[in-house]
């Protein structure tokens, strides 16, 4: 079984700047892996890269069986991942319910799945009819999380997911991530809340200067820790 994320010497350019200057990384199905490193180490770029949003200029990069050096395959990959980044991708002029319904339906979710996602993230009820522009930062993050949950991605990419959330929100996020892994998903996250994130993660990978050189080198033929159960 192929690993979910398989990178060897991956280089990604932002303009002319090599934000990733050689990444070796393997993530097996069902794992929760934490990316750690100073600001500017390339954590956000690596997550965006795994989402298929940035092309890989050099090296090998396969995510969920899709070759990231091939532009056409990246589009196929993107349907199957969920990315929670600094930007939420929400429309300010629409309500919470409108937003979750739009992004959920775009990924083929039923109205039931959308409702379930909203209630599991605590943005149902009175909050659902509020315009996103009126939300607090924490409510906004929860709405974005609900959009992600409604999509039911096979690979969760969480960029600083704990930032901007209150205690309850952070607990909720950890619980949702564990539930998703239980259903066969894989989670790759970066966080500044190291204690909390290390408790959540199975494994920690350190990024410095756009490389993973400080980490033990992954074995040439990695074996997955657990057989993946594909989400429906």
């Amino acid at each position, binding site marked *: 079984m192929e690993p979910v994320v398989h990178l060897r010497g991956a280089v990604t350019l932002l303009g*002319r700047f090599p934000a990733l200057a050689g990444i070796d990384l393997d993530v097996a199905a069902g794992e929760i892996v934490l990316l750690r490193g100073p600001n500017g180490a390339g954590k956000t770029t690596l997550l965006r890269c795994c989402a298929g949003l940035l*092309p890989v200029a050099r090296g090998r990069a396969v995510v969920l069986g899709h070759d990231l050096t091939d532009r056409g395959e990246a589009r196929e990959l993107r349907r199957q991942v969920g990315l929670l980044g600094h930007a939420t991708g929400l429309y300010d002029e629409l309500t919470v319910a409108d937003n979750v319904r739009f992004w959920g339906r775009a990924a083929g979710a039923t109205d039931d799945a959308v409702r379930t996602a909203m209630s599991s993230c605590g943005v149902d009820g009175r909050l659902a009819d509020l315009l996103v522009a009126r939300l607090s930062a924490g409510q906004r993050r929860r709405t974005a999380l609900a959009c992600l949950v409604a999509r039911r991605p096979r690979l969760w990419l969480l960029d600083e997911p704990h930032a901007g959330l209150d205690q309850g929100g952070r607990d909720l996020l950890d619980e949702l991530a564990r539930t998703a892994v239980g259903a066969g998903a894989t989670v790759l996250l970066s966080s500044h809340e190291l204690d909390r994130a290390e408790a959540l993660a199975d494994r920690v990978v350190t990024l410095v*200067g756009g*490389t993973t050189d400080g980490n033990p080198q992954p074995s040439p033929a990695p074996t997955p820790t657990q057989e993946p159960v594909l989400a429906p």
Partner: protein
Amino acid sequence: MTAPHAVGSGPSGSTSSGATRVLGGLSLAGLALLLGYALVWSPADRTQRDSVRLMYVHVPSAIVAFAACALTTVAAAMWLRRRTEGWWVLGGASAEVGLVFTALTLVTGSIWGRPTWGTYWDWDPRITSTSLLFVMLVGYLALRRIDNEAGDAAQRGTRGAIVGLLLFPNVVVVHYSVDWWRSLHQTATITRLDPTIEGTMLFTLMLGIVVFGLIFAWLLVHRFRVGWLEERVEHAGLDDALRARRAEAGVVAGLGGGTA
């Protein structure tokens, strides 16, 4: 007019080669011949008198400008198909040289129009569509400048290429719609040329087209090589940037595993 002293190859390198020197020499010789025919040996027109001598510079410029535009579209299509750097560079080179010739077409047309029509500008289909072509080329080159910031050829997207691809079809559509528009409107059509031009005048015009074609080719080759060199300079930057980036991690420079 290609300044022979500039066509030599110095020890430090330039964009000239044997082929461009031959091309430059032919252009200069042809230009001297053209000047003789256009300004001295060809007769004055009966109605336009000597102002017809402007035709031998205006019409060839226009033909070269439209050919450059067509070449840009071809280069864009090939870039979309093959994604090889050469086609990318060619699109920019022909658009930039084409822009120069389009500007010259407009200027000479305007200068010619004054003695012929009594006005510097007329809403003639050719002038209208040429001026729109000018704006389209400017827009295309502006977009390419933005695309160039995106890094080397592999990173570059299709934005510029799609505008380039639509360039020539747009010019054709604009030209015909303007043509149609004016033909329904104009009551007294002023013909620029006598319907048939013959003898020395026709020969001079043909010579003008050939000579301008040679000048265009000479400029295009040099401009292409400038673009090619620009790509090389940028490409050399990537390896340095990678080394600098990896040095942040405190590892020994070089791809393919450090020996720290």
